[in-house]
């Protein structure tokens, strides 16, 4: 079976090269037959990758340890659900997943933009085929999932940290985000290759960028929750290079989603937008390189091979290709208009872009700095959390502020008198919130007070936007309040979906600030009957329990918890020893109350005399972090949902020129 799998991947690679060539011929020779053949090529790649997937999964589920990857990432005792997560637990498996998602997205991307693309389609297929070819080359040469061996009796097993339900969702979600960015990138490159730099590629790519951005965001949040509940160090974001790998393209894509609105309205920032989408895609390749090259030492980058050079070449090709195309098409990318005033919505978008890209560069510097120091001085110097926290505060707080300012300022320009009216309530909301926080003794963290005030400012802004819009519809169209509210959102899903996403971000910030700036912690060595106090909670140690799981043995401390004299329940923080994998993991215990926050307890060790070392945190409002994900996802879905009015408007423009338009 390995022969068929490897053969299917080699065939897929050859077809990708063929599709790139025939689509180039179709674009330059203007022969539709070559275009259809190239399109068939994408379907063939999809079919061949599915064949490879089927063989790989069959090997995983039947414990066929003649496949080296299977024996390296699974064992007979591994629960069935984690056999699925073992797919992306290895380098080869994760690259196979990349190729599978790309094959599916290439077909969906072509289908969703089929009516937009006259001249663009062959170029788009060419770019997608080249990207597919690159990943298939990795699968054929340096990272084949079909390397065979004499089968051992049992496999090595899966990294225990990956044996968690979140691992069934977190990596695939990130992959959907990373790979999804290939579609807007291919559209942008196609637009420049075809010399069609009008707004069509922007309109066609916006939803793909939004969806990819949404998957990256949700993927990061799932990863943060996994780190919080599984890794067991008491936080949710460690500025691990692999976490940063997802954050960087997300930040740049965020900038793109804002600046693209300026291009659509004013025909400005064309070069900037193409650079942003190329940057976001390059960073997604860079992220995959970080996780899969073994160049960084982290919990995720657990495999080291020589694949890094392939990634460097691929990354270089993306960056150089985009740069050369931008230079070539510079005359077509000139701005149609200029920013009229620095007090305008487009100016706030510009500031927001500078801050987002600046933050992305700061994170990038933090990621590459250890590599550079190692390359130059042979000693790896790492960048620590305070470095990132400085930039998050220095760039993040102004960004948060701009989220509140932007909606209050009109496009083009705004007068002082008007600003006074629109800013009144949001500013009041921010100032009062800050004063209340100080009054309640929360001035132990001034960044916390600033974040709280700005969050209130943004929240009042967004609420006032909904109220103003609904009132205007109620007044002008004579609609009832509920109908006016629903129509307001329905007629401008992108704008109000965006506001809902902003509310999600505010909620996230409140949760993050509560969990970091205002958390309390305590630790102690407890003998049976002794207690530890954290916040208003008292934890009393009652003994140690032992348990045997399918592929591990566990010990946990039994802690009875009371708060203000009232019994809350029993928590069992523990440690698991995985026999086959020969590693241990922390199993944290969390008592969640939606209104107050989390009591988070870690068992740090059990002494021979039966005493346990306990570390406990009280994290107020931390659950807003996770609830924010629902608002974020809801807002993204609202934005991505197709808008027939917008489609008709674009279709009309192209129908007037007797060209195929979107319908």
């Amino acid at each position, binding site marked *: 079976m390995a022969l068929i799998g490897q053969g*299917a991947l080699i065939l897929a690679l050859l077809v990708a090269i063929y599709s790139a060539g025939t689509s180039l011929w179709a674009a330059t020779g203007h*022969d539709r037959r070559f275009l259809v053949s190239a399109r068939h090529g994408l379907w063939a790649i999809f079919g061949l990758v599915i064949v490879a997937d089927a063989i790989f999964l069959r090997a995983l589920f039947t414990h066929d340890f003649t496949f080296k990857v299977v024996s390296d990432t699974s064992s007979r005792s591994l629960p069935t659900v984690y056999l699925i997560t073992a797919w992306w637990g290895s380098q080869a498996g994760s690259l196979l997943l990349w190729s599978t998602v790309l094959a599916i997205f290439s077909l969906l991307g072509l289908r969703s933009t089929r009516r937009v693309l006259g001249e663009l389609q062959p170029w788009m297929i060419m770019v997608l085929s080249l990207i597919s070819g690159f990943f298939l080359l990795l699968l054929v040469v340096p990272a084949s999932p079909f390397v065979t061996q004499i089968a051992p009796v049992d496999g090595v097993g899966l990294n225990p940290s990956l044996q968690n339900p979140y691992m069934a969702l977190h990596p695939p979600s990130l992959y959907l985000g990373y790979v999804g960015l290939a579609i807007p990138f291919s559209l942008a490159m196609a637009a420049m290759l075809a010399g069609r730099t009008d707004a069509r590629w922007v309109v066609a790519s916006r939803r793909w960028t939004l969806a990819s951005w949404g998957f990256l965001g949700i993927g990061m949040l799932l990863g943060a929750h996994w780190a919080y509940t599984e890794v067991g160090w008491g936080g949710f974001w460690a500025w691990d290079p692999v976490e940063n790998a997802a954050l960087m393209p997300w930040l740049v894509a965020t900038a793109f989603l804002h600046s693209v609105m300026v291009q659509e309205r004013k025909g400005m920032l064309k070069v900037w937008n193409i650079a942003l989408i190329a940057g976001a895609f390059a960073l997604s390749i860079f992220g995959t390189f970080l996780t899969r090259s073994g160049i960084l030492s982290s919990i995720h980058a657990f495999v080291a091979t020589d694949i890094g050079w392939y990634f460097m070449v691929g990354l270089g090709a993306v960056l150089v290709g985009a740069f050369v195309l931008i230079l070539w098409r510079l005359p077509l990318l000139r701005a149609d208009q200029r920013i009229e005033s620095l007090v305008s919505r487009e100016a706030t978008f510009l500031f927001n872009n500078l801050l987002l890209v600046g933050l992305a560069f700061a994170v990038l510097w933090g990621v590459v700095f250890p590599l550079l120091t190692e390359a130059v001085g042979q000693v790896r110097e790492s960048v620590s959390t305070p470095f990132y926290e400085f930039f998050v505060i220095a760039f993040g707080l102004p960004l948060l502020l701009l989220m509140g300012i932007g909606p209050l300022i009109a496009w083009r320009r705004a007068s002082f008198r008007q600003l006074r009216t629109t800013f009144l309530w949001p500013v009041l909301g921010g100032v009062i919130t800050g004063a209340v926080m100080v009054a309640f003794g929360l001035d132990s963290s001034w960044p916390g007070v600033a974040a709280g005030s700005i969050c209130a400012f943004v929240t009042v802004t967004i609420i006032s936007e909904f109220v103003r819009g609904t009132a205007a519809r109620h007044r002008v169209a004579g609609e009832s309040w509920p109908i006016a509210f629903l129509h307001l959102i329905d007629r401008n899903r992108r704008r109000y979906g965006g506001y809902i996403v902003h509310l999600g971000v505010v909620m996230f910030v409140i949760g993050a600030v509560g969990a970091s700036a205002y958390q309390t912690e305590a630790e102690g060595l407890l003998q049976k009957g002794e207690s530890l106090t954290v916040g208003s909670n008292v934890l009393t140690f009652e003994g140690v329990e032992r348990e045997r799981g399918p592929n591990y043995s566990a010990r946990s401390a039994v802690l009875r918890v009371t708060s203000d004299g009232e019994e809350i329940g029993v928590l069992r923080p523990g440690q698991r020893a995985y026999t086959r994998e020969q590693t241990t993991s922390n199993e944290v215990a969390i008592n969640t109350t939606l209104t107050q926050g989390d009591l988070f307890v870690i068992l740090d060790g059990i002494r021979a005399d039966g005493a346990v070392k306990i570390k406990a945190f009280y994290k107020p409002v931390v659950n807003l972090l996770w609830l924010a994900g629902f608002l974020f996802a809801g807002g993204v879905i609202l934005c991505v949902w197709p808008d027939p009015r917008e489609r008709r408007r674009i279709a009309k*423009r192209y129908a007037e020129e007797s060209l195929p338009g979107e319908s």
Partner: protein
Amino acid sequence: MLAAILLALIALAVVTFIAWPLVRAQGEDDQLDPLSDDQRRRLALREERDLALQALNELDVDRATNHIGDQDYAELVAEYRAQAAKAIAALDAEDDAA
């Protein structure tokens, strides 16, 4: 051996599938028509016109939601009307010339 035969069959199917559009006879509609310079210019004018009309719509929304004052509104409406009229006039001139 069986695996090699299966692989050969898959390869044959793939080659047939992707080569099929090239094997059939070329038809009249097989020519992909690139945009002419005239079409590109007119598309740019239509985009300019649509941007101005969209801006006028947004100005109305901004005014209804009290984001913009009367004086700014009047000035900007005049500007964008002029822009839209200029693009429409240029398009009409192109149509007349054609």
